[in-house]
């Protein structure tokens, strides 16, 4: 009877039971009467022989309905009892499942945010991000446009319904007495309408407000800023706020959670101002006419396709418009050989352009690697659970045999084993959920996980949690019910004889050796990966030549923002250096234009010998004590000093690379070089040790340094070498800055070490995750191996007893069991090493200073795994060696 039939027939059931029992009684009575009883007696006798009528009815009714719940409850109770009786098994199974599920969910949620999930805008698949790709190389992108480029594309495109531009900025924001620096975006008036977002309050910008530089100081505030600064006051529209010292009118409030659409930034934008407010919002650029300057590509663009236009059509149109642009606006600005003239127009779907297209490939490679690693951990977890369940299956096969023999239904036993497996899976899933939440929080704390800041939420993806849960539970269910199958195969006679498997079980390890060898293989692969990436991180850190970078405090001081002129700026900087230098616990202090290892470099053209063509080299602007502060030794000549002033002869210090390149075999001290912007000559007075500028991978370029007293820059970084903890100097240094100019807000606080490491986010993420997973994998493989051997020893107690009785020594037994474990391990190691040889190739581009086939790493990993395996084999082997032959034999 089908369940639905049963459902509809429920009302009938009662009558049917009644009718069936009535028929029985009537027949019985008729038979008794036929046999000669009186009807009265026959009825009495029939009822008597039948037993309790109501009770029977009740039992019949219960067969279908109550059975299920009651049995479930019973199974759960029994299951919990069994699991509590084996706390070790339960803990390992639950933990293993939790780790596998947790790691995968956490990592996938980031992949999803960065690469998969559609943007939270209406018809997000119609949004495109225009960018330029170099026709020379498919890997070189330029995702920036100038303001005139934007106006050209916006007004000429026939395929875009709208095109908007935007870029990240940071401003000093004053609110009452508080001065804070907050991140935001400078955007074209149509930015929000192109994205398809409506304001929470008020309005967006008007076309007219984005037409004349500096004319319309209007601002849209983010929801969070509005809440914090104005207590969600709806009357905020029309009020004024101070941005970089200028007064701006609030015209609108952005909807909650609106943070633009790019993810490659460190902080959420909290305000929006029109592009033409750049003279105030981006003071460094105030002196340029960005409205008409074609060469300055400082904006990113986003467009929306017209209805019915395909991305291919829009792409063709955009490429065509770019060619037009090259022939008109660009022709006057760029030379034929300049990079921009080689650009090809590209439209990238916005869903794929949340991160810089140039970085996308790296991010994808690394995430693929992390997903693969997490997948491998899940594989280990599943195989460990399978192996644990198998061990248990063997242990319980006699129990199952006995229960079957005593008439227990197979379906009943099946349900019970199912319940036990489900209990484990649910406990593992619960723990996995907690672990995933912790893991994603941890991942989100990485400042720059992929060589760029990323705006990632530590939220979990339910789909992947569900996916890993289903995978893990199918595994644990599949292997959980195996005892039943094996129980049915068992020889009943041997079960009843109490022969719990000395000989019967020996061959029953089945697929376990493969699972264990597989785990060993995966764990050695992960360990090799972990070591390669940890060494990459170490090498990358070692590329920084700064001495003890942890004790140098770093602060950006932006005077351009305060509209200082050169004289006032110089005065401010000199006074700041003097004041900070006088603070207690300060060893030395300096100003520098470009802080090394921060991804940036300064470049300038020089002429080393008169009459030669200018050559581009790195340059930096530093104050007198700079080399002393960072610990870069001067190899020849002298450092800058108080004598190198404005007006005194121009001087420069060069690095060894530059000396080598332009004056090989000569002493460069005293030579004159020609510098550009402004054009002047400078005398070389010293040579310093080479140091890297942009990052650890960038080649060391020839580089010259000039004193800040001879080349003024409006924004410099202050570096302070402390005698103790540099963080103790933060408050005193800030106080000095405040004393000199109370409106000036210094930038974020770093040490040179934290600044360098922030640029190594990708290396640190990879190293941390791979080491974590690697150690985990080795531990799981060790536990798995231990479990299998311990189980095998338990099953072979009798055999070991016989061997010992026949003269085998404890050493022989020890060797026997250990060799069994090591044979599995060696097979796994061989497979793992071969696989690793094939796999490390894929991450070669992410490695630094270490070869993908580094023999030391390979051998070291194999040795570590082998040692763990030896430990895991030794424990059960020792137990085997302790078997007392008399006890073992009597036990039978």
């Amino acid at each position, binding site marked *: *009877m089908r369940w639905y039939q049963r459902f509809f027939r429920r009302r009938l059931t009662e009558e*049917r*039971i009644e*009718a*069936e*029992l009535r*028929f*029985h009684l*009537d*027949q*019985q009575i008729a038979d008794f009467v036929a046999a000669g009883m009186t009807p009265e007696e026959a009825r009495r006798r029939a009822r008597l*022989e*039948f*037993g*309790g*009528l109501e*009770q*029977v009815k009740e*039992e*019949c009714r*219960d*067969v*279908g309905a109550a*059975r299920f719940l009651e049995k479930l409850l019973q199974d759960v109770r029994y299951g919990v009892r069994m699991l509590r009786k084996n706390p070790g098994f339960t803990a390992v199974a639950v933990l293993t499942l939790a780790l596998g599920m947790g790691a995968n969910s956490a990592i996938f949620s980031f992949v999803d945010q960065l690469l998969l999930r559609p943007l939270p805008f209406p018809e997000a698949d119609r949004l495109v991000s225009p960018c330029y790709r170099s026709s020379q190389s498919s890997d070189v992108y330029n995702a920036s446009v100038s303001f005139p480029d934007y106006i050209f594309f916006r007004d000429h495109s026939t395929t875009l319904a709208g095109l908007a531009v935007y870029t990240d900025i940071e401003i000093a924001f004053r609110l009452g007495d508080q001065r804070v620096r907050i991140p935001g975006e400078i955007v074209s008036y149509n930015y929000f309408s192109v994205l398809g977002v409506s304001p929470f309050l008020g309005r967006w910008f008007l076309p007219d407000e984005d037409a004349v530089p500096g004319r319309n100081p209007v601002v849209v505030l983010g929801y969070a800023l509005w809440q914090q600064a104005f207590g969600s006051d709806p009357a905020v529209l029309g009020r004024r706020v101070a941005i970089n010292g200028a007064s701006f009118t609030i015209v609108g409030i952005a909807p909650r959670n609106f943070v633009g659409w790019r993810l490659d930034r460190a902080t959420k934008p909290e305000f929006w101002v029109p592009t033409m407010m750049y003279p105030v919002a981006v003071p460094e650029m105030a002196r340029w006419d960005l409205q008409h300057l074609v060469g300055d590509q400082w904006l990113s663009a986003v467009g929306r396709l017209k209805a019915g236009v395909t991305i291919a059509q829009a792409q063709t149109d955009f490429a065509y418009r770019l060619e037009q642009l090259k022939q008109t606006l660009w022709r006057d600005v760029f030379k034929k050989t300049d990079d921009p003239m080689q650009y090809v127009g590209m439209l990238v779907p916005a869903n794929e352009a949340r991160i810089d297209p140039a970085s996308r490939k790296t991010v994808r490679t690394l995430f693929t690697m992390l997903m693969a690693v997490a997948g491998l951990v899940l594989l280990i977890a599943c195989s460990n659970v399978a192996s644990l369940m198998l061990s248990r299956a063997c242990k319980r096969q006699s129990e199952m045999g006995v229960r*079957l*023999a*005593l*008439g227990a*239904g197979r*379906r009943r036993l099946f349900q019970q084993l199912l319940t036990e497996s489900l209990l484990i899976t649910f406990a593992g899933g619960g723990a996995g959920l907690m672990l995933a939440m912790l893991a994603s929080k941890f991942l989100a704390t990485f400042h720059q996980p992929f060589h760029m800041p990323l705006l990632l939420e530590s939220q979990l993806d339910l789909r992947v949690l569900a996916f890993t849960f289903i995978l893990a539970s199918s595994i644990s269910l599949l292997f959980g019910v195996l005892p039943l199958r094996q129980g049915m195969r068992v020889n*009943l*006679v041997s079960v*009843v*004889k109490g022969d719990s498997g000395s000989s019967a079980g020996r061959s029953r390890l089945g697929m376990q050796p493969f699972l264990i060898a597989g785990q060993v293989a995966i764990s050695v692969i992960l360990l090799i990966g972990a070591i390669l990436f940890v060494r990459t991180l170490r090498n990358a850190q070692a590329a920084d030549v700064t001495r003890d970078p942890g004790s140098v405090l770093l602060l950006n001081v932006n005077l351009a923002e305060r509209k200082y002129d050169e004289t006032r700026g110089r005065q401010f900087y000199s006074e700041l250096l003097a004041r900070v230098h006088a603070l207690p616990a300060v060893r030395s202090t300096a100003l520098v234009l470009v802080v090394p290892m921060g991804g940036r470099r300064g470049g300038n053209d020089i002429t080393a010998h008169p009459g030669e063509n200018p050559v581009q080299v790195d340059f930096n602007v530093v104050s007198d004590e700079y080399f002393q502060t960072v610990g870069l030794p001067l190899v020849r000549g002298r450092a800058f000093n108080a004598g190198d002033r404005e007006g005194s002869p121009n001087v420069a210090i060069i690095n060894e690379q530059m000396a080598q390149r332009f004056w090989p075999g000569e002493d460069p001290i005293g030579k004159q070089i020609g510098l550009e912007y402004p054009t002047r000559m400078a005398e070389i007075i010293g040579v310093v040790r080479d140091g890297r500028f942009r990052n650890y991978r960038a080649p060391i370029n020839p580089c010259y340094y000039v004193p800040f007293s001879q080349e003024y820059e409006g924004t410099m970084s202050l570096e302070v070498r402390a005698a103790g903890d540099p963080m103790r100097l933060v408050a005193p240094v800030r106080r000095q800055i405040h004393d000199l100019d109370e409106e000036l807000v210094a930038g974020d606080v770093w040490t040179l070490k934290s600044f360098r490491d922030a640029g190594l986010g990708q290396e640190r993420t990879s190293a941390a995750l791979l080491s974590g997973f690697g150690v985990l994998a080795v531990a799981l493989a060790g536990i798995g191996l231990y479990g299998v051997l311990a189980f095998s020893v338990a099953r072979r107690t009798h055999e070991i007893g016989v061997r010992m009785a026949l003269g085998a020594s404890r050493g022989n037994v020890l060797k026997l069991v250990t060799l069994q474990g090591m044979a599995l391990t060696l097979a796994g190691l061989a497979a793992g090493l071969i696989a690793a040889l094939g796999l490390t190739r894929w991450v070669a581009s992410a490695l630094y200073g270490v070869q993908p086939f580094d023999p030391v790493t390979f051998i070291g990993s194999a040795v570590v795994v082998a040692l763990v395996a030896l430990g895991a084999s030794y424990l059960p082997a020792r137990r085997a060696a302790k078997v007392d032959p008399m006890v073992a034999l009597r036990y039978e």
Partner: protein
Amino acid sequence: MAQPKAELLKGTLDMLILKIVALGAIHGYAIAQRVQQISREFFQLPQGSLYPALHRLEDRGWIEAEWRPTDTGRDAKFYALTKLGRRQLEAEVAHWERLTAAVSLILRAAE
């Protein structure tokens, strides 16, 4: 002693019912008569306890039931063995034989 006996009885009763039903469609009363004939000398079984067992076997899909008139014209519920039931019967008979073999083995070993 009451508990193990009941357990044993339960499994055995199911097997007996299946065996009887295997001979052809038969109603509850007739099954009770057959059980009584076979088992009277070994154990006393209230006829009522047959019905929960029948319903349980039906619920498991080992037997199926159909209402149709008896020779006397009255409607009765006739039970017949299903394919699943036949397999179950074979398995239970095999188990039974193995169990009795085991028990006699023990008894002989204990001598």
